[in-house]
């Protein structure tokens, strides 16, 4: 197995008023290419923070994240943006669609920032939206979609450009059980067929159990469960 992500001594502190909160505390672990990993833990234990640092949307206070051997924390903005754009598919815990774009356009948004302008693959967008269960909402704006539907658009967006790693922060949080199942099956399939690495945060122990490996966060500390 090839190590894809190697986190070592990762720490993130927030200065709030006059105290510091250590959201992630000297965390070290490695994930191989093609692994299907779940992260569990109480709310406030630092899961989102950890995932955000790995996804390159937040800088750690100290420590490093090696992605395929390269320290992403040392990247300049352009390289880090390319990393987010090409290597990572990020699914936020909260709504993350642009209100002035249709569902379809939101899915294509990352393509706008790519060097190779392959953004126009509309068949693929429609296919993806169909897979996540909203094939009939392609031209609809986020304001006309329910929370769960918006989340599905965000999932389609993360999958659109074939990332190496999908980082999903409670991806099925507000979906009904049936769709939740569909989405998990989709993840599993992608993981199996395309060797896409999945790290997903969940509160649902049943979902966590679907992973080959589960990591537990407790007050900023991480250990294998």
């Amino acid at each position, binding site marked *: 197995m090839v190590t894809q992500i190697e986190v070592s001594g990762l720490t993130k502190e927030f200065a709030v008023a006059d105290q510091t909160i250590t959201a992630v505390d000297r965390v070290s672990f490695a994930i191989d290419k093609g692994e299907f990993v779940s992260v569990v833990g109480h709310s406030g234990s630092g899961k989102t923070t950890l995932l955000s640092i790995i996804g390159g949307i937040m800088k750690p206070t100290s420590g490093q994240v090696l992605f395929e051997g390269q320290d992403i924390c040392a990247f300049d903005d352009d390289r880090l943006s390319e990393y987010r754009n090409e290597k990572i598919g990020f699914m*936020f815990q909260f709504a993350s669609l642009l209100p002035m774009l249709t569902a379809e356009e939101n899915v294509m948004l990352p393509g706008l920032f790519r060097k190779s302008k392959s953004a126009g693959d509309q068949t693929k967008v429609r296919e993806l939206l169909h897979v996540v269960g909203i094939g009939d909402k392609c031209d609809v704006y986020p304001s006309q979609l329910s929370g769960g539907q918006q989340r599905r658009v965000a999932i389609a967006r993360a999958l659109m450009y074939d990332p190496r790693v999908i980082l999903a922060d409670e991806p099925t949080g507000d979906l009904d059980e049936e769709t939740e199942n569909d989405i998990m099956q989709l993840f599993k399939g992608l993981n199996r067929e395309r060797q896409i690495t999945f790290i997903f945060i969940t509160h649902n122990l049943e979902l966590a159990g679907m992973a080959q490996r589960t990591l537990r966060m407790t007050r900023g500390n991480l250990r294998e469960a």
Partner: protein
Amino acid sequence: MKAEFTFSSLALRNLKRKPLRSVILIIAIALLVSALVFSLSFVRRVSSGIRLASERLGADILVVPAGSRGFAEDVLLENKAKSFYMDKGIIEKLKAIPGIDSLTYQTYLTTMQGLCCDVPETVVVAFNQDTDFIIKPWLTEKFGRKLQKGEALVGSESAFNIRVGLVEVDSVLFGNIFRMVGILDKTGTGLDNALFIDDGNLEDIMRKGKTDLKPGQISIVFAKVKKGLDPYKIAGDIEDSFVEVDTMARKDIGKSIITTLRDINYIFIFTMLLICFLSGFLTWAIFSAIANERAREVGIMRAVGAKESHIVFVFFLEVIILGSIGSIIGIFGGTALSIVLAKTFSIMKNLPLHLGVAERFIIGGAGFLVGNGICIAGALSPILKIKKMEPLMAIKKE
């Protein structure tokens, strides 16, 4: 099928989200640019009009009765009907001044419709055909002879006024009938509005008593100086020698207008700076608000791979779209204003020069650059601030 999804469509859609705000900014920029285009057109037109006129006069020094400089400028630059007189004896005295090469003189009469004449109010220039070098260059080729008594030439602009066109007509000037026998080429000076007669007619005119001109009076002497001599110095010599006259070197012609113009210029500049500052401030305020409202969206775009430069690009597209629409409206507005108001400002109405297309183009271009420049300057700091935000922080900001 909808239009392709690009940065510009993104920018356009962003602008359409808050149409009122976009419109306010466009109006502000349009006002700024139209004020700028108008003032530039005004200053440019007046100053180059005066320069052109003085260059075309063909004399190095003008000698006028003491205290009549302004009147002379009125006649020569703006064709305001003015009369001012001095004794003809000055000519012989001037000939004695060293450095003078040649001299000619003119006498100006003002017509008043109904009272003396059947032409609208204008200046009648009586000139001496033997010595003249002022009018001669503008005599059309066709008119290859001397003017006779009872004959008049018309300036290219008055040709329209009195509707002679190419047809010979008679007009009454100071009780005498004159036949309009020819038209002068366009000189680009106030003389374009005048009528020209030989000064041999003055006796007849004075006899009819319809003018306050006295025998032996003239209005102005034009002098050329010998090659290589300084007109300013000789003009100074003339003023020192004869208290009864004032002089103007060629470059001084229009000086009083240009001085006024400089003051107008300062007012324009001050006003422009103020408007620039206000529009810049407005842009800053609007884009600060926009940046704040869109922090989350910017964070999302960053999270899915937008570089800082992409974010800046989208915002700048918005700025440039607003700035360009505003500027273009402003350019048309300002140009229209300068054309319409030209008829209101007497200083512009009478100046011969009209701005050429090229000049209007340059002024428009300047307006466009300033309009967009102010927009960019105003929006710069909010945009730079928001691009620096960490994606997740921007997303969480609410």
